[in-house]
């Protein structure tokens, strides 16, 4: 077992952080434990549930499947950073108004998946939204409210784009 700590430098939510980490430390544990960014959750630690999604150099990845050392030199955005930057405020508002979360445990991952789903513009069908969420389990909502919230944002963004109702 390789246990000598290694120095990593990661851009986290726009700030450069340096830490010594054990080689076996997952990115999720690094964020949660070493940096106190507990908005990233662990539901399965095997890439199935999506609770641990973070944005790595702009695309959604499972932080449970990555080692902290693999993020060396890269840029990670967690739910805390995305929320505070205002980038997903329309999604947050829609989730809140539609009550698209109950216990909230899946919510960070859902927002990151939703952001990715809408990244390319356009208004996906409800089925496409449901497909896009297939790597994100939610045990509380039954998904419909989440689909509704994402659909609402997609439509609103498209309307803004063309400067009027579509």
């Amino acid at each position, binding site marked *: 077992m390789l246990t000598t700590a290694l120095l990593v430098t990661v851009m986290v939510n726009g700030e450069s952080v340096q830490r010594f980490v054990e080689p076996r430390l997952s990115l999720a544990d690094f964020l949660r434990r070493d940096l106190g960014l*507990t908005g990233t959750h662990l539901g*399965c630690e095997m890439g199935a549930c999506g609770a641990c999604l973070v944005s790595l150099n702009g695309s959604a990845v499972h932080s449970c499947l990555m080692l902290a050392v693999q993020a060396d030199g890269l840029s990670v955005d967690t739910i805390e950073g995305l929320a*505070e930057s205002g980038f997903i405020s329309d999604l947050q508002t829609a989730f809140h108004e*539609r009550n698209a*979360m*109950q216990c909230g445990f899946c919510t*960070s991952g859902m927002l990151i998946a939703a952001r990715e789903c809408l990244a390319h513009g356009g208004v996906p069908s409800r089925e496409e939204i449901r497909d896009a969420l297939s790597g994100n389990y939610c045990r509380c909502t039954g998904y*419909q409210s989440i689909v509704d919230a994402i659909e609402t944002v997609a439509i609103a963004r498209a309307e803004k784009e063309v400067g009027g109702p579509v």
Partner: protein
Amino acid sequence: MSNASDIPFAKTTKYIGAALPRATAKRFLFGRGRYTDDIEVPRMLSAAFLRCPYAHARILAIDTTNARKFPGVHSILTGVDLARICRPWVGTLTHFAGMKSAPQLPLAMEKAVWSGHPIAIVIAETRAQAEDALEAIQVEFVELPAVVDALDGLNEHSALINEAAGDNLIYATQIEAGTIAQAFEDAEIVEADFIFGRHTAVTMEPRSILANFDPSTGRLDVHQSTQTPYQFQDVYARHFNLSEANVRVVAPDVGGSFGMKLHVYHEDMAVVGASIISGRPVKFTADRMESFASDIHARDHRVRARLAVSSEGILRGFDVDDVTGVGPFSTYPRTSVVEGNQVVRLIGAAYRVTDYRAALRVVAQNKNQMSQYRAVGHPVAFAVTEYLVDLAARKVGLDPFEIRRRNYLTQDMYPHTTATGYQIERLSLEICLEKLHEVMDYAAIVAEQERLRRTGVYRGIGIATYVEITNPSPAFYGVGGGHVSAQDGCILKVTQSGEIQCMISVTEQGQGTEAIIAQIVAEAVGTDIATVRVFTGDTDMTPAGGAAWACRGAGVGGETALQAGKKLKKRIVEVAGAILHCPAHHLTLVDGRIVDAQQHTRMTLRELAHLSYFRSDLLPAGRPAELTVAHHHGPSGFPFAFTNGIHGSLVEVDVETGIVKILKHWVVEDCGTVINPLLVEEQIRGGVVQGLGAALFEECRYSASGQLLNGSMADYLVPMACEMPDIEVYHVETPTRDTELGAKGCGEAGTAASSAAALNAVNNALSVFGASITQIPMTPERILRAIGAVG
């Protein structure tokens, strides 16, 4: 009805009944939820468990010498270490006459009784270090024959799990009402054998506990992902011999619970014990494999049932046998027999049936413990009932809606006592049935079904009624000696600036308890909801109460808050009257303003609070402004509040692959007064999906030797967004008159009959093949076997 004040409560519907989003849920959208595993405290250690790899084994010796030398390890405890400080617990209640269950301790002693049974706890600087050390613990086992199938466990020659008991039968009961033999004489008879697989809660947040014992003061502080903190305060105090006033249990944000997080688990007791012994804070969070192996499982029933029906389609009697396998012992403190008990008592509850016989056997087996999970017993009872009712309809040539119309309890029959003894205040069965007929557009989907059938597309339509137990009185647990509160308590205080803080014993796991309590308090007091803050889940802060179980948050907690709010309003206008030299009964409170009979604002609550707290010298002598009230409320009147409703499901069965696609699901529900329709609908939808998961995908599969075969999220199928339909929810309101608020519960209604509706829908689709299926989950393989496509 409990009236805390003589001011009548006029429902203004400003807040009660409004679809308001949950103010406090915003933190989840910013990653600012705070779950137990998020909490770190100084000098904290992490725990990991060594578990028995066998379903049933004798433990001859445990050697921890090498493991103790691992880096970071603080200590390793085994069964005997914890047995010294922990009184065993026994999962029986006296009102289940004759039930027996083996005493439990935090860690296995001479025998381990399921694969996953904790044997040793390692506490170390980090979880990873604790796990490293696990591998160096040496245990000498002798594997014993395992009881895996519940029916085998009843066999005379079966291995015994609890030798002292003499057999594996934990509990048995019989119900007989009317003359069952007569009911079946000259009747048409339909019958079926059902298998209900085991599934489990799979809360997205696994179980987690952080226990912090301070040996200098004897203070135990526990943060725990639970729905019932007061119950755990009682358990930890009694079993570890601590002063209860010195035990604090906090439930921070809880990432799903569904009944699973109210049972006593060996790991929780071991972590508390490890903190007491070490004098250090100890945290344990289950990983997903541990969750599958130790979170309670649900269902696991074999039911054989018969229904007698007249040729006119009048139901005459039910005859039921249920055998349920509950794992090696009965769960504490609520037992593992409530589920089976509800199965045999709820079957047929919606119908005019007086002849009834049922037998229940609850059997021990070497599997993980089985106990209460969302909708306890209801999904089994209604799958059996509604399947048989559909079968009866087919037998006598009636439409599924028509046979229900002919047999439901109707408005002229209340109050009603069921054949099994449940007292029902009032239901709205026939109203919900007609509403469902309308919203499904039944005629149209039947026509479409027939049209598609000719093209080789097999759709099925299923409906299923439920009658759900909510707002339980102490008849549930208290009368049997269980330390489970059926009442709740609430403290309301006016802050220095005239806002309201509410400390209430019902708890929040995302269903919106805090939101509806705020709505009720704002309305009852007569103030702006933005000035009401609700606090839950901390035994140091709120009065003791039942917290969250059996859908009691709105019905019991809501009434508690309502009466507390009325009390506070009365107190406020009394103080205002004294200040304003005006009779209190001429004053009331509207939107945080004290107004007189002419609707003139005389002062604001803010001004009143300011005077009360900062200028008490100006108040009339001897009249201190006591702007804090407490109120407790326990259900009285009917022992339970029964809700009702009906589900409709539209499915498509691919007869090549056996895959079922749920196209649409409808629910018409009646939970009494709806406090927040947005939240009720989301409770229903979430519940429906858990029921559909059970119907189609979810199953804890065991090998013949008692090994759990699919203990991971990749192998155990939780419903995904792409597999679930849109779900339409409609409300009918029949408030209970046992309370002023009139709310019953809604948290379990979605799960109570969605699997039954799906079962009926699939069978409706399969009927053209003369095939049927009576086992859930209805996996593709089982569907294909049912239609004879595979052997």
